[in-house]
């Protein structure tokens, strides 16, 4: 990295807390617009102070309602907050209805809050990449906390580990079978379990169930997921939920877990970026590269099989061509 190259204008706009510029950068990140890369590069050294908290769980369990209460509590204690709500895109039309904002209230004109809705736009890896960059932009913008709400279905909730330093899994009493099927994946994800709708019957039983399950897990010396019962209806348990999140964050600082987590997330992110580059570089290039013409010919004639050909191609492509201007 060259020292002190002048900041791109969009990066300067972020640092002077221009909300429109922040919104436009998130749009560019969502569109995977390569023009945004210099700005992301310039801002990276100015990130890392925001706490990025994932809130995940099935549809309708009260994630947005909880985010709303956490938002109010954090603002009352003077913390600035970014909120990202991710909802799935329709696999058929590519469209989506993003409704998380409905539940979010704030004081009129409060500059300490920035809310953004995102659609998953197809593949789970893509959600993770764009959401991570959006969270990081909110970090550079100066938000103390970034709350990322995702619908916990299959891959997306696993992807939250690649974004957030603390992940909260929200469940409700009597989720029954759904919890059973979720359970396997849940423990890789949850730093804190939140059983919401505690005003409904069965919450204590669900908490007890979960507590048993957690105590069975063999994680001696490691963080043991906390279990908090909340009601977004009457607000009970929400301060305790935030305390549990803070305890996990403090644990990360104490045990070197933060650096380890950041390294793990960095490796995932860099992998994705490299794969993107390689894929972008290779796609469609093979057919037009003269040096592979003979090889393609031989595969077509059944003299070489495609697997062997792929090994040959990977070996000859170690040295990358300079990137095409895009």
């Amino acid at each position, binding site marked *: 990295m060259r020292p002190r190259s002048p900041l791109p204008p969009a990066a300067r706009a972020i640092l002077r807390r221009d*909300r*429109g510029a922040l*919104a*436009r950068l*998130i*749009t560019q990140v*969502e*569109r*995977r*617009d*390569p023009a*945004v*890369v210099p700005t992301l590069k310039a801002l990276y050294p100015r990130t890392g102070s925001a706490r990025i908290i994932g809130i995940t769980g099935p549809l309708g369990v009260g994630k947005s309602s909880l985010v709303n209460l956490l938002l109010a509590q954090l603002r009352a204690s003077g913390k600035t907050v970014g909120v990202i709500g991710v909802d799935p*895109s*329709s696999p058929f*039309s*590519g*469209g*989506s*209805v*993003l*409704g998380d*904002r*409905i539940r979010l209230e704030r004081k*009129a*004109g409060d500059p300490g809050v*920035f*809310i*953004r*809705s995102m*659609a998953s*736009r197809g593949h789970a890896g893509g959600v993770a990449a764009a959401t991570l960059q959006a969270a990081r932009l909110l970090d550079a913008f100066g938000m103390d906390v970034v709350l990322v709400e995702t619908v916990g279905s299959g891959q997306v909730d696993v992807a939250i580990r690649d974004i957030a330093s603390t992940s909260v899994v929200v469940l409700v009493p009597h989720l029954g079978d759904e919890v059973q099927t979720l359970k396997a994946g849940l423990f890789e994800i949850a730093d804190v379990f939140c059983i919401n709708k505690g005003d409904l019957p069965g919450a204590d039983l669900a908490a007890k169930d979960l507590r048993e399950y957690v105590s069975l897990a063999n994680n001696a010396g490691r963080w043991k997921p906390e279990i908090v019962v909340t009601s977004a209806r009457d607000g009970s348990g929400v301060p305790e939920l935030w305390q549990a999140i803070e305890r996990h964050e403090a644990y990360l600082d104490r045990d070197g877990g933060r650096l380890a987590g950041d390294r793990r997330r960095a490796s995932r992110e860099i992998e994705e*970026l490299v794969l*993107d580059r390689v*894929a*972008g570089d290779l796609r469609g290039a093979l057919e037009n590269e003269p040096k592979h013409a003979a090889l393609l010919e031989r595969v077509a004639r059944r003299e070489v099989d495609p697997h062997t050909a792929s090994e040959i191609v990977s070996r000859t492509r170690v040295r990358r061509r300079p990137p095409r201007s*895009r």
Partner: protein
Amino acid sequence: MTRAVKPPPIRVLIAKPGLDGHDRGAKVVARALRDAGMEVIYAGLRQTPEEIVEAAIEEDVDLIGLSILSGAHMALFPKVLKLLKLRKAGNIPVFAGGIIPDEDARALKRHGIKAIFGPGTSLEEIVTTAKGIARRSS
């Protein structure tokens, strides 16, 4: 980063200013726009003009749709347009739906509302018009 294969979807904010509590119409329109491939940010009921404009800026939308039944459109819609200009977002097109007398509709169009749909309008017409006026088309 690789180039996106498909053009990015149009992002549209659907909001309901005013005090009436019915958003069935707004929801139907939201779903129709989704089925046409748009990303619809649904802000819900009883939004103030300030909230609508803040949401439009944060969400960086290409289009705003306002729905109203309460009769307060002459007070609320021009306020939204004025605030958008004030926040340097005057280039976001706004359309409206609801029960709006012809005379008011003409006045609102002069204020800068791009399209106005009465209760009988077909969803097809709304979708086509919305695609036509969005500031970034897909």
